[in-house]
């Protein structure tokens, strides 16, 4: 099975507010707020760590959930965020990743 890599889209604006990310789309200035799980994905999306590792290290340790279910949900969430151009997805590491430092 191929692995999925995710990177923050450098064209968005982002800031953490009370532990949740506010993201403004670079495409159409729409505003999104990410829930806790999506915020974990966003913060871990360094372009180099595959999704299954993020899920194992960051999500399964935080929530009581079956790893396979967590991975499926996380992939669905990542694809949704990618459809809004918040995340970039690839089956290969994203070495050119130039994502910003969102605090």
């Amino acid at each position, binding site marked *: 099975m191929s692995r999925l890599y995710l990177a923050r889209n*450098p*064209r*968005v*604006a*982002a*800031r*953490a*507010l*009370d532990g949740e990310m*506010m993201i*403004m789309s*670079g495409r159409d*200035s729409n*505003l*999104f*707020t990410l829930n806790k799980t999506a915020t974990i994905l966003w913060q871990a999306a360094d372009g180099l760590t595959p999704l299954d590792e993020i899920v194992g290290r960051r999500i399964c340790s935080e929530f009581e959930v079956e790893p396979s279910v967590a991975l499926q949900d996380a992939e669905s969430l990542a694809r949704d965020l990618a459809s809004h151009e918040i995340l970039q997805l690839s089956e290969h590491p994203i070495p050119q990743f130039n994502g*910003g*430092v*969102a*605090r």
Partner: protein
Amino acid sequence: MSGLMQEVTAKALKLNIPLNVQLDLTYRCNERCVHCYLDHDDHGEMTTAEIKRLLDEMAEAGVFILTLSGGEIFVRKDLFEILEYARRLMFCVKLKTNAILIREREAQRIKELGVESIQISIYSHRAEVHDAVTLVAGSLKRSIDAIRFLKSQGLRVVIANVLMTENMNDYAGVRALAEELGVECTLDPTVTPMMDGDRSPLRLNIDQNALQKVFRDPALVGNVDEFCAIPAKTQESDLEGLPCSAGHTACYVSPYGDVYPCVQFPLPTGNVRRERFVDIWRDSKAMNEVRSIRLKDLTTCPQCSHVATCTRCPGLAFMKGNMRGPSSQDCEKSFARTGILSANMLSKRRTLPTLVQIRVTSDLTRVMA
């Protein structure tokens, strides 16, 4: 403001987060607009390194929307270095500029950096009027060329049209120009005093008749009857409201590092060259005083029928001498909109000195005007 942005703002207010900051990078400018509130000398602008450190502190404090303005931001040679740094910190960056230094290359760079929007001042669709405001020949053409460069990059451009005596008949033309260019357009009928308190620019404010015309133009306000409606009876809960976002979720930083509640509210609260931004935001006595004021604490406005719907600017009130007092320019606007005098206007009428005095001198009655 979108529903989600309202929610985010409410959360920021509760958590005391400065969500929205305007940072003026310089007061130097390549135009000399007749209504400008700034002096254009450099009194010691922050260096590139100082601005980068400030941006770090702002990101740490939770600032999300960063408006870079001036003066003219493009006269700073390090603008793109600052922009790049700000975007690396993932601010939502908005620019305010006259755009006359933006050509194809600059527009492309702005696009690459993911700037959210560029607000450009246009005073008229006619060069003879616009250039007479900016006092720079050819400035309208250069600004419009820049808008085209920016639009060709797919960027969001907003024309800002300040309405004053010099251009009061041209706003429809500016709106038509905006439509032709495919950009948004805002109109502001308020000329403000200079930041040093000089009130001479106020002579350029349009009069009541012109204001009434603007407020009754459906192309600008939508439903005129609704916009100009007589205000509903004030509820007690209205008086618990905040005067505006200044000092609550927004503030302003000058090119010299001075922090004010807003660009129109020059109350010194601290300087980022001496203190951390977040310490000024959270702990400044002046900032906390601004933050403590509710509509019920104002001197005249709680008795005014407009209190819940007025656009009262606490900064303009401050520049008139009392941040808890009325802002006369907004009283004028409420009156122009609804035909109802504000409490401030009524009290002034009551205290106006008698214009005609009758003095008896022996058996002769003289009338003095």
